[in-house]
């Protein structure tokens, strides 16, 4: 029976990603032998002649002269058994997957599903036996391992990066721990071969808490690229405040005005919609408690003035918000339990060992809460720079979805609008939010006398499921203490 094998464009140099087809030395119908020169390609480095890995009859040239072909893409199909006996098995490339499945004890009748592949790839011993048997082993195993996402026709020709010994199907896949840590939402898109991605992309995915196997790869040989991760994020960012097409529309532009002109109905969408969803979700799942504290922040105002004159801070804008942020970071350090998240699904509390400090910002698009990543690691000057970036981005409407992801605690600067304080609603997924009221000169008892002092009000809302009143009070008191006397920061730092 005819048995078709495909030859995938190899990397003829070191780390090349594509090549141009210069000349085909063969045509459909030609009988070819192993190592016979079949095609000339031009890579970024050189002109190279590729020898055939098969003996057989050419059935298809899958690319044309002049094409630029990605490494790993099939370029040639050869019938390696043109004179063979017809057999009952009518499968083509798909047969390879079934073969491996049989050897590993899986029901051969099952389609080349992820399960069959996982078995084939995870059991090493039978595949060594298989390897001796088949000269086509290397290719068929790849096909088998890669057939998860393709249909039967594609199964024999998955775009595979052949070379460097990196064969997805041949790597032993460590079995997943039983019952452990299944991703929320099931395994709908989880492939059962190791995900190919470069270390920086893996790192990025880890930081984002993203399972790379759920990302659709676009790179050569099924490599997940940074762009893929970013696209995936954009596509799945519905849980948090996110950007949507049309975000920049003026608020009434999309609406329809009633005939009497007395009201306009605007469809709820984009940031407004997200905000509503997030607030409803937060307000009706997390039992909110808010505590208040009025503080004399005269010393903080003095410090702000001093820092403004400090040459080291000449390049940044020093504001009271910067010092509130620092005070909150110090309080979190003393009470890390507040920097946490409630996982309803797993009935777990996730204590974060990092602080991504959210700052609620009013923007042309509406309310967004970008956060400063790893704010707990930043010295004051660096924190000031990050804060400035964040504010500038929010103002210009260019806050990225990534900047809004994975916040751990938030500050809302309601005082900027001249408000004393409020009872803020938690950013979903966080356990505390600090409202920072306006700072104004007020009569205040200072050292036994009534003096004019700079006074502000702080309010801390927290999720009572995981933060008790006492913890909330301690956090709020610490923030107030540092605001009242910044030198306390030196004691706690």
């Amino acid at each position, binding site marked *: 029976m005819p048995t078709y094998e495909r*030859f*995938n*464009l*190899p*990397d*003829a*140099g*070191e780390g090349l990603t594509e090549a141009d087809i210069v000349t085909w030395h063969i045509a459909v119908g030609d009988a070819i032998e*192993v*190592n016979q020169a079949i095609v000339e390609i031009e890579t970024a*480095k*050189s*002109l*190279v*002649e*590729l*020898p*055939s*890995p098969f003996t057989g009859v050419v059935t298809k040239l899958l690319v044309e002269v002049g094409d630029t072909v990605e490494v790993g893409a099939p370029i040639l199909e050869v019938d390696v058994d043109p004179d063979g006996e017809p057999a009952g098995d009518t499968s083509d490339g798909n047969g390879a997957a079934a073969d491996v499945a049989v050897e590993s004890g899986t029901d051969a009748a099952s389609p080349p599903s992820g399960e069959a592949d996982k078995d084939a790839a995870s059991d*090493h011993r039978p*595949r*060594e036996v298989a*390897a*001796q048997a088949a*000269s086509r*082993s*290397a290719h068929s195993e790849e096909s088998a391992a890669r057939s998860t996402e393709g249909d039967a026709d594609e199964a024999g020709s998955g775009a595979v990066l*052949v*070379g*460097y*010994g*990196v*064969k997805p199907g*041949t*790597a*032993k896949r*460590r079995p*997943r*721990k039983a019952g*452990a*840590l*299944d*991703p*929320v939402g099931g395994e709908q898109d989880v492939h059962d071969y*190791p*995900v190919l991605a470069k270390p920086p992309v*893996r790192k990025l*995915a*880890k930081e984002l*808490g*993203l*399972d*790379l196997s*759920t990302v659709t790869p676009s790179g050569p040989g099924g490599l997940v690229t940074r762009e893929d991760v970013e696209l995936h994020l954009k596509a799945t960012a519905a849980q948090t405040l996110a950007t949507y097409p049309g975000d920049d529309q003026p608020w009434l532009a999309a609406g329809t005005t009633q005939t009497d002109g007395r009201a306009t109905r605007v469809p709820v969408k984009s940031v407004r919609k997200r905000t509503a969803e997030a607030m409803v979700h937060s307000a009706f799942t997390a039992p909110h408690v808010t505590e208040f504290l009025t503080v004399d922040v005269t010393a903080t105002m003095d410090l702000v003035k001093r820092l403004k004159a400090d040459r080291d801070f000449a390049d940044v804008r020093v504001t009271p918000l910067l010092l509130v942020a620092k005070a909150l970071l110090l309080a979190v350090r003393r009470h890390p339990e507040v920097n946490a998240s409630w*996982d309803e699904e797993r009935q777990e509390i996730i204590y974060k060992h990092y602080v991504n400090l959210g700052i609620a910002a009013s923007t042309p698009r509406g309310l967004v809460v970008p956060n400063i990543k790893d704010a707990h690691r930043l010295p004051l000057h660096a924190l000031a720079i990050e804060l400035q970036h964040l504010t500038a981005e929010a103002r210009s409407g260019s806050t990225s979805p990534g900047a809004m992801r994975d916040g751990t605690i938030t500050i809302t600067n309601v005082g900027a609008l001249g408000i004393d304080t409020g009872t803020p609603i938690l950013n979903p997924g966080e356990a505390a939010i600090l409202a920072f009221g306006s700072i104004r000169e007020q009569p205040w008892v200072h050292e036994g006398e009534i003096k004019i002092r700079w006074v502000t009000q702080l309010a801390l809302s927290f999720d009572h499921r995981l933060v008790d009143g006492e913890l909330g009070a301690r956090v709020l008191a610490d923030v107030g203490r540092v605001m009242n006397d910044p030198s306390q920061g030196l004691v706690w730092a």
Partner: protein
Amino acid sequence: MDPTGPLSTDGLVQLLDHEGRALTDDVYSPYVANLDADELRAMWRDMTLVRAWDLEATSLQRQGELGLWVQSLGQEAAQIGSGRALRTSDFVFPSYREHGVAHVRGVDLVEILRIFRGLQHGAWTPQDHGFHMYTLVIGAHSLHATGYAMAMKRDAAQEQEPGAVVAYFGDGATSQGDVNESLVFASVYNAPIVFFCQNNQYAISESVTRQTKVPLADRGKGVGMPTVRVDGNDVIACRAVTEWALEHARSGKGPVFIEALTYRVGAHTTSDDPTRYRAREEEQYWAERDPISRLEAYLESRGELGDEFRAQVAREAAELGERTRTTVKSWTRPELLEMFNDVYALPHAGLDAERAWFDRYQRSFDTQEAAQ
């Protein structure tokens, strides 16, 4: 060619001219006087097999089965000739192109390809073959070789049979500090080492004329060691010169510098395209000086090759090619953690920590805990 430059043929030891006619040399002919027809045929067979396997490996790279391949094409005589001068008690420090020497030292050629398929850093046990692992860092192993030779000298009192070290390197390596340091140490310590420089005329794309103004062998003169320039495509001369040099080193007279003038017929590696930096005429000139056809012509002229032997070697070559192809394709990827296995002979806390870290790192890609 410049009569005094690095490619000068002046003083080049030659026992077979490029058409296969025998020549004599007062100093070196005696060292090969005892080579009978069987031994000469064996050298021809070695060269032929290594070349066939080399071409097969090149094809495998082009088919995506090897990440990279480094051809020894054209350098068979320098490698087989010098390699066959070695004794069991000798120890070789190769660079990464010494496939012919590896073959003579009993390393299975097919196993070498594990390195180039990216499966292992070293594919044989050096002690089993008196053949160190390939060193990819240019010239770095010349220091190891020199140190090994200095140690051998200290051990010599206890050894039954004295041994020597051969360090193989190329023309490009002579510009490295490591090689020059090695020459200095080997010389002043009178270490039993032969520096075998295969001048294949190119350091990747850089011509040897840009590495030196004088023959490379003269590098040895500067540190006071005897030097020989030999026709690197003359397998008999390479054998004779190396026999002489090893005898010199083993007998306690100190190091020798051999320059074997040869030609890298193939590319530097499969990632390289030599047509961009050298002329067809030059390649043609060296094709006429091919090491295998030269010995072949010599044996033919004496009626010592024979169709039967040719056919037998052709069969062996085809079998080796087939075995190479099927074996390479059958190799599966080892566990990454295995790379920690053969680093130190004894337990090593630092390495254990690194292994544990890597194990954790690797597992971190497995778990799904972050996906929430």
